[in-house]
């Protein structure tokens, strides 16, 4: 009797769970999985929306191999990963800072989070002004005496990509800070207190207790931000246009794919580039999960 009730209950719960999952799955199927599956074969065609579509076999892959712009874009996208450690380290430090029970700490949490909810397009336009020759950044640096002549942050090929990274870091910090903050609040206070009692300094506690316990969060955040960095699009597109100006210095794979598809109407080739980039991200993700498995997804075991 009791057993029957349990299975009954379990059945109901199962049905309920699936019912709750269904709408989400349908949306994903229609708007995510269907386009992905539909997009795969495009990589082997010359699809251009309007003209007749022909199967071209590996032609797009051969073209990609010989395409200097693709390699340039890939190189820039990989270079973009530099901003990942910067974001993560700053985000952890910020999370530790706002994890204090200070008065007004809520204000800082909100303030740090505001860039995340700001529209990237609006933010990128504002940053464009900051980086201008007569922009705020040059003004401040000149006032501080760091530079004598204004620097054209957006026009110098060696600097432009880093200028874009600055925007990505600024925009992403709050998001990762929030995740780390949640992580920090799940770290048992006893451990930290015990370390303090044992005479560890504040930094020592952060370094030896907090950060190791944050490891699962660091893993997730790192993977997410590496994926984000390789796929970066909005800030580059808004600040430097579809060709990754100046002279391709900020051309990244996301923008290059867009240009191929929506400016050259070369959807087939664009799909090829997109496919290869997503494969690379996938391989990276699988590898990083593998390597980090021993690190432990849960520190209570």
């Amino acid at each position: 009797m009791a057993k029957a009730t349990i299975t009954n209950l379990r059945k109901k719960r199962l049905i309920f769970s699936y019912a709750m999952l269904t709408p989400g799955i349908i949306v994903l199927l229609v708007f995510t999985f269907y386009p992905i599956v539909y997009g795969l074969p495009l990589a082997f065609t010359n699809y251009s929306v309007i003209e007749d579509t022909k199967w071209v076999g590996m032609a797009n892959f051969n073209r990609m191999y010989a395409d200097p712009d693709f390699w340039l874009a890939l190189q820039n996208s990989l270079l973009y990963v530099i901003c990942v450690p910067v974001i993560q380290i700053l985000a952890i430090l910020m999370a530790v800072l706002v994890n204090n029970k200070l008065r007004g700490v809520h204000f800082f949490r909100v303030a740090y989070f505001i860039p995340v909810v700001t529209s990237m397009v609006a933010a990128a336009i504002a940053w464009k002004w900051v980086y201008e020759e007569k922009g705020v950044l040059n003004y401040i640096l000149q006032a501080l005496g760091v530079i004598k002549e204004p620097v054209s942050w957006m026009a110098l090929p060696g600097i432009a990509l880093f200028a874009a990274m600055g925007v990505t870091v600024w925009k992403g910090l709050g998001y990762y800070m929030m995740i780390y903050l949640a992580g920090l609040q799940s770290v048992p206070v006893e451990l930290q207190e015990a370390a303090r009692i044992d005479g560890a300094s504040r930094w020592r506690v952060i370094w030896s207790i907090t950060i190791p316990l944050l490891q699962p969060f660091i893993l997730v955040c790192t993977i997410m931000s590496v994926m984000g960095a390789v796929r970066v699009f909005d800030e580059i597109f808004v600040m430097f246009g579809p060709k990754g100006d100046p002279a391709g210095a900020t051309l990244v794979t996301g923008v290059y794919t867009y240009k191929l598809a929506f400016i050259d109407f070369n959807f087939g080739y664009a799909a090829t580039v997109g496919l290869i980039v997503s494969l690379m991200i996938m391989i990276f993700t699988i590898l990083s999960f593998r390597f980090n498995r021993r690190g432990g997804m849960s520190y209570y075991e």
Partner: protein
Amino acid sequence: MKRIGRMTVMVLAVSLLLSILAACGSSGTKQVEDTPGPVTINFWTISLSPTFDDYVNARIKKFEDANPDITIKWTDLPYGSMENKLLSSIAGNQSPDVVNLNTAMALKLADKNALVDLNKEATEEQLSIYFESLLHSARIGDSIYAFPWYYGLGVLSLNKEIYEAAGLDPNQPPSTWEEMKEHAVIIKEKTGKYGFVPIYNPPIDLFLRGVPIINEDKTQIIVNTPEALEWAKWNKDLYDSGVVPKESITADAGYATDKYQGGQIASFITGSQFLNRIKNNAKEVYDKTVVAPIPTVSKDGKVHGGLMNVVVPTMSKHHEEAILFAHFITNDESQLEFAKVVNILPSTKEAAKDPFFTEGDSNEPEDVARRITATQTDKAIDFTLGVNKEGEILEFLWKYWKEMLLGRMTPEEMLKKAEADMQAKLDEILAEG
């Protein structure tokens, strides 16, 4: 209580599911084509709303009154999203019927047989009202893919205040590029501001300077000429000298407009139709503006006019009505009225003859600009290569031009490399057929 809650959620989930399925199903059903009776024409324009709502709606009303069976549904899109939106509608079998495109976009779609050939489907009479040179901008072979609409010609705007602060006379505007440079040097020295921001458009700049770009047969690229080299070197020197901002390498018209409106540059070249933007955004700068003809470029006085066209996509289900409206919105009457609302030039012969364009003696910048540009209409051209995938060919020139400015290649190397790569691309495109 809990039970009821769950039931409600279940019902909601199921109904959501059903509605999604229903939505998927309905989009698959095809509409019946060529139904007699009332027809709705979808008309898409670029960046006309809300500034010209009154004008466009009045024209639509007039057309609808004369053709009670036709309803016009007007949609305005920003410049940047037109191509995208149009492509996805065509792919989704929901093509608009009459679309406003610039020449480059029109040719790109014409390449792909997405536009109605007006030489075949429009009447001789309909085609006869336009200037031939403009009608031919969107021509490939014997086909004409667009009715020309409005265009603007460039004028030079000077900020009187900055000019005077630099000890220059704004009533003696620079008439050549060499003078532009001389003035810019003086302005930089005296006021610390930039004289102007060059907005590079290598294909057009070179073409106006007598570089053919492509031969008559459309088989050979010609960009490596002495004229081209001279212009390239001149620009490289100008850029290196710091007389113009380094940012000009990525500057577009929007950037220059911002700077001019902000009173940060002494002069800039803009389409006469955009002067009202300055008037609206920065009245105090507009009031200090003196308008002059643009510095001369070509020996035969040719000037570049960015042309807006109206096309009918092949996928439209009502070609006849669409062409009727496309012609109506670009006819003499419509264009003349439009020109009275904003500083554009009409592409039709009769409208251009109207005394409105040449009369008057006010010093209002917009009026001066209209009188200046009205004298140049017979010299206006819109540059196109007239071959498939023109953008992909010209891209090399754009790219190497910038690399030259950045010092990654010399002007000589730039032209040589551009010519070689553009030729290779052209050969590839011709081989594809």
